[in-house]
């Protein structure tokens, strides 16, 4: 009896130490620090696979993967919109994997050749500082056209498409919806009301939260986060429709820890994990059709979504950004 319990204890210690010595899964996370920490901790809890991660926004992450190409230091790149993963695929930085769990997802969330899989989505949103609006005596804008009103002169901040994937997403989705001519003529008009084009995709939410700008345009999670922190913001989805991003995950080519990397992809798009996005207060919209969106998120089916084509957007990036610099920015 005593001997056997000793043996069990010995085996337990052995397995535990083997587990501890197993190389952890190395993640480059473009999901923000806090959410990445929560999501990956939940993954480790469910699967027992140890994880380490570094938070890098998409530009630095891609630059790093490219510089480390001959000797990859990470296994997987989690987060950043799917068009960035298209870039990674075209540069030969990632490798294909079809997760069995991906079958239930909408086709637009999975790369045809399996190089990337989207695991959540965020709609574009417009937020207004209600304290400012009260003081300035303006009405809540309801559409993209309303944002052209002179009362919003020099009060709107949006990210620049040059450096920000968010800014580019806004420009590209308007072009996809309205055609190039009309979209650019709108952006030229909107330029008159722009206070500044920010370099970072999340800077407008800061500016509008502290009242630096009256109105900010960007993806919704940071707006919702600020509202939760107590800032006086009102979130608006213009009635003509908004674009969205579908952040994805790709396995890095030459990943030292391939098996666990695949396990993370499987887990992230599983129904249990997708439901956790709400519980963890990530403000991410799940992509799994049966998953429930979290508390504090607007009902997804009430958001007027524009169609988005990540591959087209990725392929035409340089031309569109150059045209935007020449026609919108230079016009000032």
């Amino acid at each position: 009896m005593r001997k056997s319990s000793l043996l069990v204890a010995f085996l337990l210690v052995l397995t535990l130490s083997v587990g501890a010595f197993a190389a952890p899964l190395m993640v480059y996370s473009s999901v923000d620090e806090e959410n990445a920490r929560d999501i990956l901790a939940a993954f480790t809890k469910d699967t027992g696979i140890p994880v380490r991660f570094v938070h890098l926004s998409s530009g630095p992450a891609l630059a790093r993967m490219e510089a480390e190409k001959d000797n990859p230091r990470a296994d997987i790149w989690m987060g950043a919109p799917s068009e960035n993963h298209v870039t990674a695929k075209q540069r030969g930085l990632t490798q294909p994997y079809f997760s069995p769990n991906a079958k239930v997802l909408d086709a637009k969330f999975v790369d045809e050749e399996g190089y990337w899989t989207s695991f959540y989505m965020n709609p574009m949103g417009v937020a207004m500082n209600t304290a400012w609006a009260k003081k300035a005596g303006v009405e809540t804008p309801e559409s993209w056209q309303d944002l052209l009103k002179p009362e919003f002169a020099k009060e709107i901040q949006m990210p620049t498409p040059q450096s920000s994937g968010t800014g580019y997403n806004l420009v590209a989705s308007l072009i996809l919806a309205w055609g190039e001519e009309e979209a650019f003529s709108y952006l030229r008009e909107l330029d008159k009301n722009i206070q500044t084009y920010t370099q970072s995709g999340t800077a407008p939410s800061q500016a509008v939260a502290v009242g630096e700008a009256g109105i900010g345009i960007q993806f919704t999670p940071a707006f919702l986060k600020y509202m939760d922190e107590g800032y006086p913001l009102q979130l608006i989805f213009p009635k003509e429709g908004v674009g969205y991003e579908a952040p994805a995950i790709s396995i890095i080519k030459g990943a030292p820890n391939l098996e666990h990397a695949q396990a993370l992809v499987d887990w992230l798009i599983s129904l249990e994990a997708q439901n956790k996005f709400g519980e963890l207060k990530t403000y991410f919209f799940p992509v799994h059709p049966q998953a429930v969106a979290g508390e504090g998120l607007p009902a997804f089916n009430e958001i007027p979504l524009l169609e988005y084509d990540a591959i087209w957007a990725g392929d035409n990036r340089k031309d569109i950004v150059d045209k935007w610099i020449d026609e919108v920015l230079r016009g000032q």
Partner: protein
Amino acid sequence: MSTILLETKQRGRRVYLELQRLAKEPWLALSILAIFTLLALFIVLPLVKVFQMSLASGESSVAGGSVAMYKEVFQSWYMRKALVNSLVTGVLSALLAVLVGFIMAYTVTRVNVPFKKFFNLVSIVPVISPPFVSALSILLLFGNNGFVTYNLLGIRNFPIYGLRGLLIAQTITFFPVAYLSMKGVLEAINPALEDAAFDLGASRWRVFGKITLPLAAPGIASALLVIFIESLADFGNPLVLAGSNYPTLAVQAYLEITGMYNLAGGAALAVILLIPSVSAFILQKYWVSKKSYVTVSGKPTRSTVKSVSGAMQWILFAFCVVVSIVVLVFYGIIFVGAFSRAWGFDYSFTLRNFSYVWDVGYKTIVDTVTVALVSTPISGILGMFIAFLVVRRNFIGKGLMEFTSMLSFALPGTVVGIGYILAFNTKPLLLTGTLTILVANFVFRYVPVGIQNGIAALHQIDPGIEEAATDLGASSQTVFRRITLPLISPAFFSGLVFAFVRAMTAISAAIFLVSADWNLMTVQILAQVSSGRLGAAAAFSLILVGIILVAIFIIRILVDRLLGVKFETRF
């Protein structure tokens, strides 16, 4: 013909003598060799890798031999505008920061006014500017809804974005660099010279214009150079305060890499950025080397301070008070933010930001302090030692050593970061993800400031003192440790402080070098700012500032003890 032959012969003989002298001092020869190896490895190699990358053809980023990237850059009006903006901002920032730094340093060292210790502190503290949060603080002060502009002056839509905001931010963040080096230089000027001029009947302006200013000129030149280069390479401030309407080269290089995923284009922009930086460096070297002044030539002296008139004294005092208020409000805003529920909107008191930081960032804080503690002494001693070699010793490749050690400072951090990954990601130099790569990056990126300060300070010390020691049988090592280092201790101290501060606050290169094992607080601050936790970012920044202040205090005591200098008389 024969004269040329003779010259060649003479030069050959000089080289021979030089080698013979080095052979007598193997320690010196070895250190020179070691420094050259390190410079080649940690400055030249990454730069070569970046240069290779800039010649990559188009989007593929495969290193090749094409100048397509450069052509593209020069054909774009936007990039040309960025070049002009960078130069304009660099010149104006350098002038403003040196002006403020000089006035503060002059008042503290030469004028009899109250609160000198306080002014000294106020002028050193802004060297610690947590990235992004300090730019945010400027927005909260001078922005559209800013405390000064909107609440005090009632201006909405004050055009803060662009040159104006950038100059405010860069002057506040860079004037301490000028102050520290100006103070070191002004303290090293023997007041007996000024006293002598007064005794001979010279007016105050004449003494200032003919004695103080010319003696401080090498220091002013090096401060101008350093700040010009810093401004060119700065990307944290313009990233927040300039927006797309006011592009600058360093930001564009960063954005090419991180926004357009174009490593080659970013590298090309960085190489272009090198041209003004390196030109400034060469200009300064030429100018300073033409004007060498020796003032410390033996026993220390004490002076009666009578350099300015009564009225001027109070004008300077008022200036210092205004600068102090700006600095205090600048930090006050961050301080308040760290303890507020919603920074910028709801100012009710809370400690939740700190409990959050403790929870999320404890390991990062330990990592950051470790990296800074390891890199600071290496950087400080290396800086003074290179300065000593460059000014006091003759050896082959001296100019090359000075030039190379300055080089990485002139490169935007983003590109240094990329260069480091490219250079150190394969065996036998596999350093990515380690403590070594972070330390090497900080040491070699920020050692130039120590070198510059050291050179400026050494130019003012009569080599006769050291020669006397050598004649009495002291080795190079002993002369450096017992004579030179204590004499230039203010420059040594400011070099150490600068190295520590930068190791704690730099982000542009570090963001490419952090790993799961070694993360840095600045990278965390950026993450908090971009995910909307302004309070947590402010709390992080406050902890950062606190750690640095404690460290400066400890460094001061250590420098006192180790060099046997009584600092109370100097600081």
